[in-house]
């Protein structure tokens, strides 16, 4: 990864969800260690021995942090701070982007929202003191200099047309190909969950908007052609919560700490300003009597 600013994310290294309970982290670690062990046939032709060794190091490092409750919490805080942009940069957004805000306290949690509520004293395991770091926690850059075994030059084809090598492997080479398939229409908009046809008026309205209430969020979602199901899968927010959220049904929404996470997710997945969504929706919720009386603030 030389030369790129890309950072490794420990959750991605261990391939666990951001809210995975501790025993899953441990299981993932055990499995990852076995996977990248030197003699595993599953590596063959994909990773060299050196690469596997470096991956193993990274796996150990990731587990040394995520495997420890306190270290993990601190790491989550760091992630959260360096957050919004990174979600968009992570390799392929199939795995739902993390909602750092929502995640931070749910690790040992069981099903989604049956989690300890931070507003209830004693509902967290306080027994483990949060350690201070001797070195700053930094997400490190992926190791390993480039491999130098593929040296094929771009061949000149018979027709004299320039063909460039797309990717070369030890066993085959893929060259770039001309294609007559048309480009995407210019008025195609894009949000993390898909594409839609741009409507300038609505775009302007969204950009100008400062108050995001449920119905407006729903409008944005529908405009961007994102189904509830899709949003639910990507954001890991249950559909019933999404429905409550979109209909300003405050009494059925979770405690503020989780609601905030939901809103971050929602904003992110719909490609709108998370901060505005969180601020305006939270103040709406808190102004609601039912919500305020339920969560007592």
């Amino acid at each position, binding site marked *: 990864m030389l030369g*790129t600013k*890309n950072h490794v994310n420990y959750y991605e290294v261990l391939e666990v969800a951001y809210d995975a309970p501790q025993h899953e982290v441990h299981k993932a670690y055990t499995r990852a260690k076995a996977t990248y062990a030197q003699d595993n046939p599953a590596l*063959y032709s994909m990773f060299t021995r050196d690469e596997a060794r470096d991956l193993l190091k990274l796996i150990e490092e990731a587990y040394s942090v995520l495997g420890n409750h306190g270290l993990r919490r601190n790491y989550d805080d760091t992630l959260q701070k360096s957050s919004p942009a990174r979600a968009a940069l992570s390799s*392929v957004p*199939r795995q739902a982007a993390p909602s750092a805000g929502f995640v931070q306290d749910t690790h040992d949690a069981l099903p989604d929202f049956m989690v300890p509520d931070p507003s209830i004293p004693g509902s967290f395991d306080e027994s483990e003191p949060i350690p201070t770091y001797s070195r700053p926690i930094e997400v490190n850059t992926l190791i390993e*200099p480039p491999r130098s075994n593929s040296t094929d030059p771009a061949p000149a084809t018979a027709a004299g047309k320039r063909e*460039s090598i797309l990717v070369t492997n030890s*066993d085959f080479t893929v060259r770039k190909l001309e294609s007559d398939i048309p480009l995407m229409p210019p008025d195609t908009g894009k949000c993390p969950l898909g594409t839609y046809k741009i409507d300038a008026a609505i775009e302007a309205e969204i950009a100008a908007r400062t108050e995001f209430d449920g119905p407006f969020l729903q409008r944005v979602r529908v405009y961007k052609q994102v189904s509830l199901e899709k949003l639910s899968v990507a954001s890991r927010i249950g559909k019933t919560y999404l429905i409550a959220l979109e209909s300003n049904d405050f009494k059925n929404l979770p405690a503020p700490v989780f609601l905030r996470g939901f809103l971050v997710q929602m904003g992110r997945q719909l490609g709108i300003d998370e901060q505005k969504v969180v601020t305006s929706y939270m103040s709406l919720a808190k102004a609601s009597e039912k919500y305020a009386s339920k969560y007592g603030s």
Partner: protein
Amino acid sequence: MNDNNTPNPFKLNPKGPAKSGMPATIWAVGGGKGGIGKSFISSSIAICLARMGKSVTLVDLDLGSANLHTCLGLKIPQQTLSDFISGRAQHISQVSAATEIPGLNFISGFNDALNIADLDRDNKQRLIRALRTIQTPYVILDLGAGTSENTLDFFLAADQKIIAVTPEPTSIENAYRFMKSSFYRKLRLAESELGIQNLIETAMDSKNQLGIKSPADLIRHISETNPQAGARLNDKIADFNMQLLLNQVRTRQDIELGHSMKSVCKKYFGIESDYVGYIDHDNAVWQSLRKRRPLVIEYPYSSIVGQFLGITKNLLNPTTLRAVI
């Protein structure tokens, strides 16, 4: 839907194109290496679907060496895809035959006169479009060995892309080669669709300096240099998810291989895949083949059939797999 209860295994379906408008869901079974059980797997999954009450059409796309009918215990069919390709049959349903298994229809592959390499681009497109119009909700494609462009395109056309692999190193290697080939084909199609050839080209020109060693690195690099293009590219390849199926396992270690391969795929390609399950190595497989009776029918209560049923359920509902880690 075809009438499934007909005793004649090769009764032709006279109906025209599907009118329901719901395109069929396509599952393809590929994997590169020959003789690892692709035909056995695709036929068994198709029968399982049929036994679960779903209508399904099994298509032999191992053009040139089609032998799926043998796995089903059928005689050599009279109408094959050759008739469709040559235009003798107007609609694909005309070469589809009901079988003795209720709910299961079968489309036979080419006869020996034709080869998959002979299928030109137009005919391939026509065939792929036609597969979607098949009237059963599920269509299972049995692909041939190798990584020919046509095989890759059938694979990429599928909604569920099943990679069959056995624990032997040669099979694993070929499975990866098959994945790489189809991934790059997908990438090439995506890049020209998005008009971002130059981005990929530029990145690959200096891939050593940039430390690009895998597709995951490449896509990450593009996302960093041009987030917009990166996002669109990600979007395009997001549906390139594969379902790993391990066949002929004998040990616990073999079973773990599926998890390992899933992780390797994630780290190498940067994409999620699912490990949908494994099938034991069992002599009953060739015994049933020799009897020309599908194993799922012959030994319905065997553990292999249980494994196939589990796999079929996973394939029907892949998101539940991904939810639990």
